[in-house]
């Protein structure tokens, strides 16, 4: 004959364990713990975000001339979207979308090239108050090949 206390404790234990597993079933989200202490599905969700910058390789396919000009010049390391802005829309549908800065807005050059004492000394810098004030940079410099002066 099993004593009353033992029956009570077994029933209680079964109840607690069942409650735990039922609660766990409803509270723990799908894919949690499959590859670690996190939702494995979150990785897919994060990877699904749409890029906005296309990457230089996407540009050079259609604009090879610019790429060849640029790569030999001082702006070789400067990728297209630095000045022209995020262009993934443009690469997906070139007819409908233009890059945000098809012609570069004023101030683009000086953002990098205005003199700043913090910048490395070997980097090309000008003081815009002294270097041909009032004349647009593009009047003399081709941004794709900046060291060749047009005039």
């Amino acid at each position: 004959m099993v004593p009353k206390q033992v029956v009570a404790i077994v029933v209680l234990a079964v109840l607690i364990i069942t409650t735990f597993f039922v609660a766990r079933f409803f509270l723990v989200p799908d894919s949690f713990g499959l590859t670690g202490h996190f939702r494995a599905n979150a990785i897919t969700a994060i990877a699904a975000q749409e890029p906005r910058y296309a990457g230089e390789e996407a540009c050079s396919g259609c604009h090879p001339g610019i790429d060849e000009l640029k790569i030999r010049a001082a702006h070789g390391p400067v990728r297209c979207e630095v000045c022209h802005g995020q262009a993934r829309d443009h690469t997906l549908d070139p007819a409908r979308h233009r890059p945000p800065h098809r012609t570069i807005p004023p101030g683009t050059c000086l953002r990098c090239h205005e003199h700043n004492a913090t910048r490395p000394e070997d980097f090309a810098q000008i003081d815009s108050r002294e270097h041909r004030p009032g004349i647009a940079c593009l009047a003399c410099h081709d941004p794709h090949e900046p060291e060749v002066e047009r005039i």
Partner: protein
Amino acid sequence: MSDKRTGCSRRGFLRGLAGAGGLLTLWRGLADSEGSSASPKANGKGPEAARHVQYGMLIDLARCIGCGHCVQACKMENDVPHEPTTFRTWVERYVLKARHTVVVDSPNGGIDGFPGSVPAADMLRSFFVPKLCNHCERAPCVQVCPVGATFATPEGAVVVDREYCVGCRYCIQACPYGGRYFHPEYHVADKCTFCYHRVTRGLRPACVEVCPRKVRIFGDIADAGSPISRLLHRHPIQVLKPTLNTEPRVYYLNLDKEVR
């Protein structure tokens, strides 16, 4: 001593308990071994881990010109709110003056560059320091998350599960690098993901893409032949706050000791 009334001796009870415990241990051991053979643990050190690329970034401070394109592109790429307190990456300007005075500023994270030079006469030395989440291998933010909403992907990028984060902000407090912020719209912690959505598609992170001086080098540090690995092997490299043993995946070249 046996209890005639219940017919259950103390010795018998203890024996049963020990047996049950042993069975449980055996069952868990079996479950673990099955688990590891069927679905390899991504963060484990086994041969399965070797298949994954391991992301890392090298930042050469001697080349940074503080133009802020990286900050701007990061905000554009990742919909980071345009508030002066929310950044996934930002640029700091360090100015070393006489008598060991160090002045650090970062106007709006450097998103518009640093217009207005520091008077050259006033300083001994000055340089820019781009910062971002260090994607630590032993990340304090991952350790403190109470729900498992922040974790390292198999490739080593520390990310936030936006759907599962409860917004308790422990991770923001725990990060020694200030790499995290509280997203004012989604009410969750947010941070740099190494542009996980881009790098898994074979693109560069947005900040690397738009860096005009190639200050930031991104790549696979598990592949000894990759450009970043070769640079890491051949140059004296430092990380931020090495004494914390966080083992960052963001490495710095030409880092000054003043940088915190």
